[in-house]
């Protein structure tokens, strides 16, 4: 049987563990990103077709991956909230959404800026680009729905329902390039077609940005837990003020 206090104990343990882990994750992210940037700008060769514009790849591709990973985290957390009613799941879903949205935006913008020199236009309406745009809309929808409900517990659960409805977008993004013949690069997923001189920096950048994502997610969850504690304390203060004031009559 779980009471309110027992449920609060769980986030407390999360706070302890995440506080210990956060500096290490942050440091790891910084190291990997710094090393990747060194490789990108001073070591990696230009592509024989794309020239130096291939440097955009090292931020574009990790952004695109993290955009999808972010939604996966939201979806898994939503599932955890609706099915197991885990109190941290809602915190996780809420914290992951803006981070995922930011990386989706980054993928869209860097992709557009890559598209102009490569395809001659900032934007084409092909399946992958469109599906990433839809992903961005879904993120916006999640954030907007949550913020337009006053009851936070209800807002979390309804947002979770929406997140699960939208989860169909992930396979569409992933396989859109294979299903429809489009301008965009098909998924190579580190098969041998990519030269190691470009694969290594991409891999290192991807690890670095993923660590950054994790660090931001942990910090975001901590912030949210603090916010909820503040709210609880303030509500207690408000009730207390009410009691003290009422006592004046007696």
């Amino acid at each position, binding site marked *: 049987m779980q009471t309110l206090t027992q449920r609060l104990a769980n986030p407390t343990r999360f706070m302890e563990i995440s506080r210990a882990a956060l500096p290490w994750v942050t440091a790891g992210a910084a190291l990997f990103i710094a090393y990747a940037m060194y490789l990108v*700008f001073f070591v990696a060769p230009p592509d024989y077709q794309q020239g130096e*514009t291939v*440097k*955009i790849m090292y931020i574009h591709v990790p952004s695109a991956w993290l955009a999808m990973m972010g939604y996966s985290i939201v979806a898994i957390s939503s599932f955890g909230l609706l099915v197991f009613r885990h109190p941290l799941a809602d915190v996780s879903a809420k914290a992951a959404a803006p981070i995922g949205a930011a990386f989706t935006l980054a993928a869209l913008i860097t992709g557009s800026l890559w598209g102009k020199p490569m395809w001659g236009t900032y934007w084409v309406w092909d399946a992958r680009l469109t599906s990433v745009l839809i992903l961005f809309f879904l993120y916006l929808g999640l954030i907007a729905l949550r913020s337009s409900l006053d009851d936070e517990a209800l807002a979390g659960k309804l947002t979770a329902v929406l997140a699960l409805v939208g989860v169909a977008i992930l396979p569409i993004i992933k396989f859109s390039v294979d299903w429809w013949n489009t301008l965009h690069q098909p998924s190579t997923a580190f098969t041998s077609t990519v030269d190691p001189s470009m694969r290594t920096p991409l891999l290192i950048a991807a690890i670095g940005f993923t660590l*950054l994502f994790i660090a931001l997610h942990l910090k975001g969850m901590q*912030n949210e837990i603090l916010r909820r504690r503040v709210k609880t304390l303030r509500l207690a*203060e408000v009730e207390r003020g009410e009691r003290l*004031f009422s*006592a004046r009559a007696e």
Partner: protein
Amino acid sequence: MDLGPHAAFIWASYAAFVAIVGALIGWTFFDGRRQAAALQDADRRGLKRRSEPGPKQDGA
């Protein structure tokens, strides 16, 4: 460093990326500070109320 004819696009995309991710990091950090301060404030008020009786009342 020579980034060829499309240098502007490369720099623009890195700049946009840094702006977006930087804003995200900055906001997360700032929000953390704000919540921590608010929690301290709320804690302090709670403690004060409990240890010392309020000025006008506290017969509850």
